[in-house]
């Protein structure tokens, strides 16, 4: 029992990331009809927003501190971040400590801008081209974005810690009456899960309760009809692309303390997120979210020692295996709609 709860919890954070990326992919596919292979790159750019802000905040100048000596007895050189000068030492340190959450504010405008530029500058021209062309051009874009990040930030993962307040873990098992230390769960993962839930809820509420969202949903159901109503759907779709980019980017920002960002993280997540979208059902938002969590948890179950002992290597392939089975038995995915990509 405790092991099962632990695995479910472990699967939730990865599942959250899958769900958030898949949500954006589905929004873009549902509204614009474009299969976006560069969506993983948006996730990665989000993560590097956090890295960038962290670097900006820790920009330092060097002073020679006479009160401290290094081991040779010389005065110690100390790096002092500029934020100390601006906000004082205590506030400055707190700001640096909270760099990842602060990056959310920084990332939103950046990601929306990146998304809008991408849509207006490139993807717009591919609406009428075959799906294969869309895949290819966004694939090319993903390579370019990834290489640009690699050029500026190098090939190694860059550790980006969570605020000190969230280090450590919650003894979840003790709360449920199990023995202590059976089910422990890092605080930041709880935060990530909660964050994902809020974002997902926000996107759904936005689509459900605003006129903008209503038009977008109508457009997802039948683009031509909405176009006939004289509503400028293209502009709304551009904004939708910006929102999808922001969702992916924020997912990336918050993921940095869980996995140190590197330039190819986007592609790693993208391949799996595509599988998630297809399993959930092309064009179905609830399907994308459901499949994201489902596959995240499944993956975590498959990595249990007991399971691996029975079927070695299952943790490596479980997601693909599930995807293959689902695609063959339920061609539209778990919650796919009729008429979407059925050619």
């Amino acid at each position, binding site marked *: 029992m405790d092991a099962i709860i632990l695995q479910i919890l472990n699967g939730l954070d990865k599942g959250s990331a899958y769900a958030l990326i898949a949500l954006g992919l589905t929004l873009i596919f549902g509204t614009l009809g474009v*299969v976006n292979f560069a969506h993983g790159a948006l996730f990665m750019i989000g993560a590097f927003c956090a890295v960038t802000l962290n670097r900006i905040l820790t920009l330092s100048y060097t002073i020679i501190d006479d009160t401290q000596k290094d081991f040779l007895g010389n005065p110690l050189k100390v790096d002092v971040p500029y934020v100390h000068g601006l906000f004082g030492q205590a506030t400055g340190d707190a700001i640096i400590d909270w760099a990842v959450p602060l990056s959310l504010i920084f990332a939103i405008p950046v990601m929306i801008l990146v998304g809008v530029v991408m849509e207006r500058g*490139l993807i717009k*021209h591919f609406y009428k*081209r*075959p*799906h*294969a*062309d869309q*895949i*290819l*051009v966004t*694939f*090319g*874009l*993903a*390579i*370019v974005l*990834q*290489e*640009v990040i690699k*050029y500026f930030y190098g090939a190694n993962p860059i550790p980006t810690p969570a605020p000190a307040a969230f280090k450590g873990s919650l003894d979840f098992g003790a709360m449920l009456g199990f023995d202590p230390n059976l089910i422990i769960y890092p605080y930041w993962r709880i935060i990530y899960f909660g964050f994902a839930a809020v974002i997902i809820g926000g996107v759904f509420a936005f689509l459900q309760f605003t006129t903008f969202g209503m038009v977008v949903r109508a457009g997802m159901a039948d683009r031509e009809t909405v176009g006939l109503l004289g509503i400028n759907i293209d502009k709304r779709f551009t904004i939708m692309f910006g929102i999808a980019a922001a969702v992916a980017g924020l997912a990336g920002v918050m993921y940095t303390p869980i996995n140190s960002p590197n330039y190819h993280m986007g*592609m790693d997540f993208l*391949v799996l997120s*595509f*599988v998630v979208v*297809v399993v959930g059902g*092309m064009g179905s938002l609830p399907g994308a979210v459901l499949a994201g969590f489902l596959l995240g948890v499944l993956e975590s179950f498959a990595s249990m020692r007991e399971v691996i002992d029975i079927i*070695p*290597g299952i943790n*490596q*392939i479980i997601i*693909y*295996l599930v*995807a*293959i089975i689902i*695609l*063959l038995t339920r*061609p539209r995915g778990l919650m796919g709609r009729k008429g979407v*990509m059925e*050619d």
Partner: protein
Amino acid sequence: MFNLSKKDLSLLILVAVLTLFAPFILNPFPAGSAMAQFNAGYPDLMQRFVIFGIFAIGFNILFGLTGYLSFGHAAFLGVGSYAAVWMFKLLSMNVIPAILLAVIVSGLFSLLIGFISLRRSGIYFSILTLAFAQMMFALAYSVLTPVTGGETGLQLALNDPRILGASQTPEGNIPVPGLFGLEMRDSADLVIGSWVFTFNVGYYFCALVLLASFYLSIRIFRSPFGMMLRAVKSNQQRMNYTGLNTRPYTLAAFVISGMYAGLAGGLMASMDPLAGAERMQWTASGEVVLMTILGGAGTLIGPVLGAGFIKYFENIFSKINDNVLHSWFSFLPDGLENAVVFIIHPFIGKGWHLTLGILFMLVVIFLPGGLVEGGQRIRGWLRSRKSKDNGSASHETNPAE
């Protein structure tokens, strides 16, 4: 001759000339000169040209003709490599049985994967092939380590049985792949003045296989089967209502292209007898897509050009560094020289992938028909200029390829 039309025959001869004289064509600069770094006539690079050419020719039979975009073809190449290395370990160092087994095994794998994946089309097909390939990669990397060598890859060892050969050479080394006494790594140098041309057994073996593969692909393109595949790409609905079952057609194309990939993998292992899982990764599958598109999907010669182009520039770009750039632009004033080098710097050396990505996007956006379409456009432009000069507008319309 060869049962080909005049046009196809000249294409075949062109490829034959290019491959057979590659050691000359790719080494235009004298050894030791400043331009020698642009030479590409080294055995292992030339081998890569033709091996990836074969891979792309096969991929084109699937993607170019039927329009089914597979994102997992590298898996078949990897399987072929493993099969060939196992043949070297167990049977003998002769490359023929190794390559045969590579083709057969990859054919079986592609039959199974194709049978399942082709039940869906469009993006679903792409994702299914991607999923299968990633699954095979993950398995080869982890659980199947006894068969695949896992992270280190599959290598030959001194104590391999090699029942029809020898486990070790008399000197106590691991024997090298060969063809009835000819070792694949053997080379002969021809020195003319300050030029050095290297003729490598392995390269010429690969080149002959490429020619055979290219010839076969021409025959397939011009056959009723090839026409049916183009019809699948054009209108599946009409196919079905014309009494044709599209699935065996697409499956046959998938298996043929999988076997081409296996052939390429087998050749790769024959040139350098080891196999690693990274050959199966989806980035490797993406590379062959790039080659085919860049050259021109659906054209005969496009994939060969694309493979050569990408592998050549990969090699050249990786070799250029800042010092080289400075020496090129030394004629500029210092400030300008530094600025130019600074701008170009991200695109060279390790930045090759960035250049490749940009190039690829430009091709998809502006030249969906790839290099072949580019060539046709230039030819059309030249022709229209010429006819304008002559004062006569000749409207020659060729049925497009």
